[in-house]
């Protein structure tokens, strides 16, 4: 059977971002095909959040290019945003709105029709198991419930690319499992997932490929097995420590 050539969903070329004199991101080159789960790992301040925010169209790059689902982020920011869903561990919901109102609001912001929004809410409520919470105010939800609703909010428009910035930060095992299940399910449906995490087990379990960022540079890239092999370690956690030590020298 011949290998199927998948379309590239994310392509960055020499992406840089400076904050004053601080170079948060230096010449990042990424190429992520459809259906891949790509993990960005690295210590705090490595540039993960900056890279994800640029790809999500939240902040401009100082120099370089980024193509998301075929659209250049500076030329077509609206199309880029329409084609992706973005969720971070720290983003929250509108506390004074009900769950259904939040989802309906974002559905409308993404330009979905009323009927489609209703259908999507029903599907997502079932998938993330919050059907009984639809009429509850968001400030009355538990942390895990909020994260499930937040994920649903990010994918209300069923995007081809989902960017998750530390989606499991601060979640318990059960809540984290919902995120893991979502990523697995999205992959099977041909969606591309990019996510950053500090949990190496999670990265090893879910990611097809990993990118190791340090000081704003992509120092290493490959499958979890390839990275372990390259650094001659048994676990990704050891690989992370070895990599951080070597990069820091």
């Amino acid at each position, binding site marked *: 059977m011949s290998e199927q050539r998948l379309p590239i969903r994310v392509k960055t070329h020499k992406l840089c971002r400076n*904050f*004053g004199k601080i170079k*948060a991101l230096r010449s990042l080159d990424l190429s992520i095909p459809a259906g891949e789960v790509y993990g960005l790992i690295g210590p*705090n301040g490595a540039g993960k959040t900056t890279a994800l925010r640029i790809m999500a*169209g939240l902040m401009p790059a100082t120099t370089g290019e980024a193509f998301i689902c075929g659209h250049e982020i500076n030329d077509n920011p*609206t199309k880029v945003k*329409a084609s992706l869903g973005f969720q971070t561990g*720290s983003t*929250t919901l509108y506390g004074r709105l009900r769950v259904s109102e939040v989802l309906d609001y974002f559905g409308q912001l993404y330009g979905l029709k009323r009927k489609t929004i209703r259908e999507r809410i029903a599907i997502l409520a079932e998938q993330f198991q919050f059907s009984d919470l639809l009429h509850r105010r968001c400030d009355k939800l538990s942390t895990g419930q909020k994260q499930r609703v937040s994920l649903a*909010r990010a994918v209300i428009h069923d995007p081809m690319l989902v960017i998750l910035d530390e989606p499991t930060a601060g979640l318990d095992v059960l809540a984290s499992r919902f995120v893991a299940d979502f990523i697995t399910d999205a992959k099977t449906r041909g969606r591309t997932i990019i996510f950053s995490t500090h949990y190496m087990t999670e990265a090893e379990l879910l990611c097809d490929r990993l990118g190791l960022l340090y000081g704003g540079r992509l120092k290493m890239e490959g499958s979890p097995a390839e990275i372990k092999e390259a650094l001659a370690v048994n676990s990704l956690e050891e690989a992370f420590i070895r990599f951080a030590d070597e990069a820091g020298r």
Partner: protein
Amino acid sequence: MKVRIALLVYRKELLESLRDRRTLVIMILLPICLYPLIAIGVSQWVGIQATAHRSQASRIGIDGTKRDWPALQSALQDSTKLQFSEWVDPNALRNGTVDLIMRIGPESKRAMGGDGRARVEIFFDGTSAKSKLANKRLRRAMVDFADKMVAARMARRKLTPDLLAPIRVNENNIATKKKRSGHVLGNVLPVLIMLMVLLGAFYPAIDLTAGEKERGTLETLLTAPVPRISIVVGKFLTVSTIATFTGLLNLFALGMTITFGLGPILAKANMAGQIPWGAIALTAIAVVPAAMFFSALMVCIGALARTFKEAQTLLTPVYLVCMIPAMMVQLPGIELTPLTAFMPAINIALLTRDMIAGNVVWALALVALVSTTLYSFLALSFGARIYSSARLLFSEEPMFGKKDDGEDEGDAPLKKVELQPAHVAMLFLVIMAALVLFAQPLQAKNFVSGMLVTEWLIIGLPVLLLIRWGNASAQAVLSLYRPRAIAMVGATLAGVTGWYLVMALVETFQQPYLPIPPEMIKAAEKMLFSGDRPFALDLFLMAVSPAICEELLFRGALLRVSRKVLSTPGVVLLNGVLFGAFHLSVYRFFPSAILGIFLAIIVIRSGSIIPAMLFHFLNNASTLWVSRNVNVGLDDVSVIDTRLLVGAVGLFLIGAYLVYRSKQTKQNEDPEADPPASIKHI
């Protein structure tokens, strides 16, 4: 901008705000409950107290006996509201046993028997309502008695009373009760309406901007494929709606309270006990642009803050500053004119006053409404700019104080406290306050020491301390870079001629509309150009010191931080306006603002503060030299000579062109970036 998205954001924000108890309390509960409770409570209390006082007889103590003057005693005794007691202790008034003490001179009986004049002394307590009422009653009774005595004396001599009163003046106030009450309300209501509109906008503006940032929902919203201007407009519409509703509801509640709660009190004050509802309905027209303006201002400033607390700190001074125009309408002589109609906030306060009083000039009203709407759009465009700035939206840096400790995934770990607009804004406000409170009195007392303290201690030193506190680079903040020679030549040519052009501009455009009072010119000349001081000392005080200290503040710190949030034209304009305001005189605003604008352009084009300092020095030094040597006063326009002016314009243009050409090949566009490679560090 997508209107559909703006309306979507508006609906959602309004729904969220209406579910917020704090908004509801300020918007609805406060006006509905507060005014009736206060007004009815006050009127009841005043009514009860007044009735109690009026029904009681005033206790008059006589320091002596009635027998000293039986005629007066018998006349006063007719008044049922006066109760007399004899041989009263002089301390009786202090300890409250009597309300008033009267002392009749011992010679009075004899004097009154003939045609003499009796002497009566009255002692009362001006802080006691009862004592004041006793005084009023006693004086009224005595005046009546005196009139009767005069009439009797005149009759004895067969003379007519007109002999003593050749002119009788009858006053006729043509103002109706309705108009009188409109006049009083016109002074009070604008303050209350502005206060309530501001209060209505204050909390929602913070909640929708900094509050949303703090809650983390802003990032969520910005991931949606919507234009950021639509988000800003949606938020602005929400705050405007709440502020308008708060203003209108307050107006209605006040009207109802005046009509039903304060009617009796107003009637007693000889005013209509009903509010002029027609005028109030008209006032609603002014409430809407006022709400729009304040909302736009607060949304835009609130967006600069990172947290709710920061936004409160930023907006509280704005709130207080916005209240000043409302209070100014109570000052005599301030009217809605073609000039004040353009002044933000003042125009609406004056328009509201005129509308309530029924004296609206519609052409000026239109100017006020249109200009306020324009200012709102300007503020909005600034707000949209903030929402487009990743630096301001995702800054981890607090506007006040040091950065929080702890782990941070913001990817921009800064070791220094980056100077923020709020830091410099606070510094500017403190300096302005110090100028009013200390600098002006000091200069009036001793000009030399006053000027030295003002320039070096009040203006220059705090700028350096702020930079030191922030551990920031003084070179970067103050643009202390070595300039190109062409910039220095340009600044010299423009500096020695600029004052002449400004003088001509003031003479042409300002003097016809805002002439400087002669006594002010004389006072300024006396203080500034005293012949007792050596020229070198004056040069140091009025040219060298301002050129260094004022430049450090305005073209250094202020210009630097304002470039973080404003476009270049905005930076230049703001610098001019603040420099104009800094001179604390409405007459000096225009010339100072023009100079401020030009000085800001010099720094931006040359990339260095040094040419601006040179220009400032030469400008002041030239004015000083001419004033001393050419023997002309500050108001002497004879110095404006057409040939000289043409020559000055020519030299100035050459200077300006050289400054313009001095722009570095790689201009420093990013305020945080390194200086251009061609600029040499000092």
